[in-house]
């Protein structure tokens, strides 16, 4: 009575000791992840295809570095504002736009064409083409190697270029339009037009600019020739922030996101509130439960599956013969012949009919089996009725005769 109860729940200190390893391991894992992110440099453009800072096979760091070594000022930009700042005089500036997400709209593209004299568009979409190169239309994908087929210097120097990417077609017959790197069917991987004084080059050769393929074919000469024509290159990979239209945050009141955060926290708290266990469960050994009629049912299904009609009927007959024998007052050792004779006598039915039912009939169909089983039951009832009648006649002969005759 003096000692307090033995506590099972660990104290915070004990729980801390038990969980120490996992806490330390978790913290370490988070630190390693953070460090690796910092080291690899989580800059905006990294990881995007054809990024000038990405050294992976899909990036284009090789191209950017070679251009820098040749004295071209390469600036990476992910927004209109940065591009504006980086662009010098339009005559000196080349803008290389890689806009996979097609975030920039027509007005922004027109502005780009004003910022430079040499605008190079890598796989633009319909709206963008419409804004600065309305003569050019999209024409599906191109694969394989394309050959130089025009007088454009970078192309003639390259001779062959990896064409994998998109192709374009020219609408109308503008004499100023230059088409290069045709892959048949009037599809070209390079189309050059002039838009209000600016040379606009529409390119589809995405693979040729990537680190992976830039050293094959004449890709290097082709890319360097196109991008290195001026001393200032703005390599623009627009981020989603440049996409036009108001964002969700601008459309909703300021408190909505706060309330959402609060609701999420409250939901988690509610989970802890409802989910906290009120002490451990108490275990219990449960007894074995076996249904006693399982063997009987199993045997019935076995009979049914194999359609052993005669076997099933014989089982029924054995039971019936046994009961008929005792009803007719025969000893337990009486055989079927004796039972048949006694039953025929008691029920005043022909002996062959009883013998057929109790011994000889072989059911050919299920219907016949059901009929025979019903006949067995009926016979049992008839014999029971007959023997009862006999016994009452013997017991009270006078009483039985009077109402009958």
């Amino acid at each position: 009575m003096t000692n307090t109860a033995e506590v099972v729940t660990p104290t915070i200190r004990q729980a801390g000791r038990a969980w120490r390893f996992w806490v330390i391991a978790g913290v370490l894992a988070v630190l390693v992840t953070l460090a690796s992110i910092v080291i690899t440099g989580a800059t905006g453009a990294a990881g995007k295809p054809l990024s000038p800072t990405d050294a992976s096979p899909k990036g284009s760091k090789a191209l950017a570095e070679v251009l820098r070594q040749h004295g071209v000022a390469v600036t990476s930009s992910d927004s209109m504002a940065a591009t504006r700042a980086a662009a010098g005089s339009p005559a000196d500036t080349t803008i290389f736009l890689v806009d996979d997400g097609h975030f920039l709209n027509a007005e922004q593209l027109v502005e780009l064409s004003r910022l430079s004299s040499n605008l190079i568009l890598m796989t633009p979409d319909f709206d963008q083409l419409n804004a600065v190169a309305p003569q050019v239309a999209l024409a599906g994908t191109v694969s394989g190697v394309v050959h130089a087929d025009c007088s454009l210097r970078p192309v003639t120097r390259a001779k062959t270029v990896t064409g994998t990417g998109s192709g374009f077609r020219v609408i109308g017959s503008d004499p100023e339009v230059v088409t290069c790197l045709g892959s048949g069917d009037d599809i070209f991987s390079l189309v050059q037009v002039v838009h209000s004084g600016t040379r606009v080059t529409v390119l589809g050769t995405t693979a040729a600019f990537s680190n992976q393929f830039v050293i094959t074919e004449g890709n290097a000469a082709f890319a360097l020739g196109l991008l290195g024509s001026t001393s200032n290159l703005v390599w623009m990979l627009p981020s989603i922030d440049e996409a036009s239209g108001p964002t969700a945050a601008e459309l909703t009141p300021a408190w909505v996101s706060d309330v959402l955060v609060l609701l999420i926290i409250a939901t988690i708290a509610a989970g802890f509130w409802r989910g906290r266990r009120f002490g451990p469960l108490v275990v219990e050994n449960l007894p074995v439960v076996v249904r006693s009629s399982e063997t009987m049912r199993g045997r019935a299904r076995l009979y049914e599956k194999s359609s052993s009609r005669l076997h099933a009927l014989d089982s029924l007959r054995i039971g019936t013969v046994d009961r008929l024998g005792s009803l007719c007052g025969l000893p337990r050792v009486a055989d079927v012949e004796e039972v048949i004779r006694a039953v025929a006598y008691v029920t005043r039915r022909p002996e062959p009919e009883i013998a057929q039912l109790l011994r000889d009939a072989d059911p050919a169909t299920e219907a016949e089996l059901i009929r025979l089983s019903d006949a067995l039951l009926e016979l049992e009832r008839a014999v029971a009725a007959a023997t009862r009648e006999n016994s009452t006649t013997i017991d009270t002969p006078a009483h039985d005769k009077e109402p009958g005759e």
Partner: protein
Amino acid sequence: MVISGWFVALLLAGVVPIVVTNDPRWLVWWLGIAVVLAAIDLVIAASPRRVILTRDVPARVRLGESVAATLVIDNAGRRTIRGVVRDAWQPSAGAHPTRTRIVIRGGERRAIRTGLTPIRRGERRAAHVTIRSYGPLRLAARQATMNAPGAIRVLPPFHSRKHLPSRLAKLRELDGRTSVMIRGQGTEFDSLREYVRGDDVRSIDWRATARRQDPQGGQLLMVRTWRPERDRRVVIVIDSGRTSAARIAGEPRIDTAFESALLLAALATRAGDRVDLVIFDRRVRGRVQGASGPELLSRMVDTMATVDPELIEPDWGAVPGLVRSVTSQHALVVIATSIDAPGASRGLLAVLPQLTRRHTVVVSSVTDPDVLAATRDRSRRSEVYLAAAAERALLDQSRVAAAIRQLGGDVVTGSPSDLPPALADRYIALKAAGRL
């Protein structure tokens, strides 16, 4: 540590200031306020660990009856414990309520009553007590689980005791019957008395009549009176092997065996016989020897309470030795087992001659009323096959029963509700016939 629904409500209430002020700083402030309040609550809450637990559990209860178990919680700390207690019993102990609100001031104690209505026979245990102690704001609570073992033994229900008065009356009739009706080997000489009209003349003892000198001069006839034999041995062997686990009409075979054993024991001990019980599969699971009167029954139910069937084949070869270890005299040996199939009963049939040579053997077995019902219903194809299988099962049973009778044993069968009185009647019949 536990947080309450109030804490969640407090968090949700933060929506109001955030919307009204439209200031993002309020989110952080509100979360801070809620966490600080909960922390204060947690610190102020009384420790649920500093308690002394005392259990007061009745030792026994019959299955189907209810008792109250008491748990006394002594607050050894100084602060008031406000909260909820869970008294953790096994599910089949049928504890209710399982959670109780408590307020215990420092140094005081409270008793919590938990009703127990067990749903299974055997030893039902309580493992631990969990206390959740809330702070004054009821935002957060401290929780601790303490070991507090307790146990209650749930005894077999002995429903068949309702048959006892009628069977005892039969037994008394046996006692008072005229000698001719029960005269035989098994009756014992009781006393001599004067002849009264109605006595059987064959029981007149002529030697005693000759010896008797009436003081008034007349000659009085003397008759012998008899009484049923007494002080015989009854050995009940209950099979707790795999076939006893089968459930018939919602009751395991072993429970029916217990019921019939209890009724037989109650009857035999009133009739002056000595009853011994052995529960057996491959080892002795329970044994009651040398008890009589009310002590016998209480020891029997106590022994039976914790025995559950095991999924093993009983070792019948050891049974004759077991019976010999109980008694060397002639006895009525009642074997409660199942006689469903010749294959499964081979072990029993093999040792039966050894038993019948020395003892009167009765094999009692439960029959399934569903089997009998299945033989009658033959309206559809699948039911005809089922009826065939049922007939087959009945045939197997009757074959085993015939084999037992051939080996000198006696067979008592019945549905779970009929078997105990049937066995009692067979005992009375054997006693009347003097075959004990």
